[in-house]
């Protein structure tokens, strides 16, 4: 047997499937060939046993060329690993990865430390007045329900402070208008269209057109007898008005005359009184001197 045959049939030898005569030839060659002996020892060893030390970075290079880095998968498991919630096989696989990956190992240690540190953040002591303030706000006098108006006012204040309130209002308003005018069955469905048509009409021109159209029709529609009666009525009205003006003018003249007479009388009466008073005053002065 030569070395080439030994290498080609080494698997069968190790599996024990060779005939006894072939096996004897194998063993005879192995006894004389150191290279084939080493090869057999290498193949016969279990995984991870024997062989030469792998060069640094070989694993990383192989992973880069095949499945890619295993860190991503490891980080998907590391939280459960820290919580002790990982299946034993996954836990062992992760442990092997952590042994070789300092980045993931550091992350796992940080997670473990955080697990102990984070519950310590659950409480923060407020200042000393806090308890007293809370008790004051929930004291018996505060338990009396405020009046309904105050509660409604407060509820409204809170409602309008919500940033979404304006948007919600606009949304509801739009829906309301749509229901009111947008549905064909609604009695107000035609209102927007009519309003638009009305807005497009020039009202002054419309009135002028109506006047030009109606005036001739009125003239022809009114009977001739009505027109004569109308003329008589207009003449009578003018006469009455003239008479009223004339009479009122005469009356005013009479009134003016009466007033003139009255003023004249009053004036003459005043003059007489002045004269008598002056004469009486002169007599009194002369008597005092006496």
């Amino acid at each position, binding site marked *: 047997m030569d070395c080439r045959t030994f290498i080609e049939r080494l698997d069968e030898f190790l599996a024990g499937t060779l005939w006894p005569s072939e096996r004897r030839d194998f063993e005879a060659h192995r006894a004389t060939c150191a290279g084939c002996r080493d090869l057999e020892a290498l193949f016969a060893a279990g995984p991870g046993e024997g062989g030469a030390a792998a060069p640094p970075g070989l694993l990383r290079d192989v992973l880069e060329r095949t499945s890619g880095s295993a860190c991503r998968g490891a980080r998907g498991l590391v*939280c459960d690993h820290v919580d002790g919630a990982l299946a034993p096989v996954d836990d062992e696989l992760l442990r092997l990865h952590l042994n070789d990956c300092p980045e993931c190992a550091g992350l796992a240690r940080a997670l473990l430390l955080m697990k102990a540190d984070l519950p310590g953040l659950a409480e923060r002591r407020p200042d000393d007045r806090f308890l007293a303030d809370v008790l004051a706000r929930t004291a018996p006098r505060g338990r009396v329900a405020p009046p309904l108006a105050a509660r409604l006012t407060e509820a409204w204040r809170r409602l309008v402070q919500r940033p979404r309130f304006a948007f919600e209002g606009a949304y509801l308003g739009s829906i309301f208008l749509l229901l009111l005018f947008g549905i064909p069955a609604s009695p107000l469905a035609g209102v927007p269209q009519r309003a638009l048509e009305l807005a497009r009409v020039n009202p002054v021109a419309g009135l002028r057109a109506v006047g030009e159209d109606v005036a001739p029709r009125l003239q022809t529609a009114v009977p001739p007898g009505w027109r004569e009666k109308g003329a008589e009525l207009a003449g009578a009205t003018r006469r009455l008005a003239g008479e009223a003006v004339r009479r009122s003018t005469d009356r005013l003249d009479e009134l003016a005359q009466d007033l003139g007479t009255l003023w004249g009388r009053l004036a003459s009466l005043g003059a007489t009184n002045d004269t008598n008073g002056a004469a009486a005053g002169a007599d009194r002065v002369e008597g005092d001197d006496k």
Partner: protein
Amino acid sequence: MGHSEPVPGRAAFRNETERVLLDEATLLERCRRGDDLAWEALVRLYQSRVYAVALHYMRNAEEARDVAQDIFVRIYQRLGTFRGGEAFLPWMLRLARNACIDALRRRKARPHAADAAFGDAVQLAAPGPTPEEMSEARSSRDLLYRAMDRMSEADREILMLKDIQGLMIEEISSLLAVPTGTVKSRCNRARLELAAHVRRLDPSYGA
């Protein structure tokens, strides 16, 4: 005062002289009956937790204080609607979250002051027993706060609910109205993101 660290849902306060253990259910039942002392004890028990939640959402100490008060007022007004069979913490956190979201909406509706970072906020709760431990705890907490500042609102919220407040996946799913699978994946993503931020800020964290 001398009471042990309270465990929400379990022991509330231990009366040192009579050794009477008040559990949460007893406190809530007494609160519902109008027991002022029980209400005070409940507020005292949960004030730090409620304030921490408010601070997580508001990110401003002053606003967080006001919102925390509002949360307690809401709790007080709605204690009658709380069913005895359910857990109190998720119910309380639901109210707290809604109150914070309302406050954030109001804040958006008006000009507001700049947000403060977590690390700039008020003092830490429950310091460690020794100065060294206290200093170490403070530095790691500050580091976590600074890292959380870099996260999105959604990731920070789910991290706060799951890993900080300790809600179950199902409770968060109910609270946020999203499937449990989504909660779990978001939660893991948020934790990984936080871990990455922390290591960028301090490579020695977990080394």
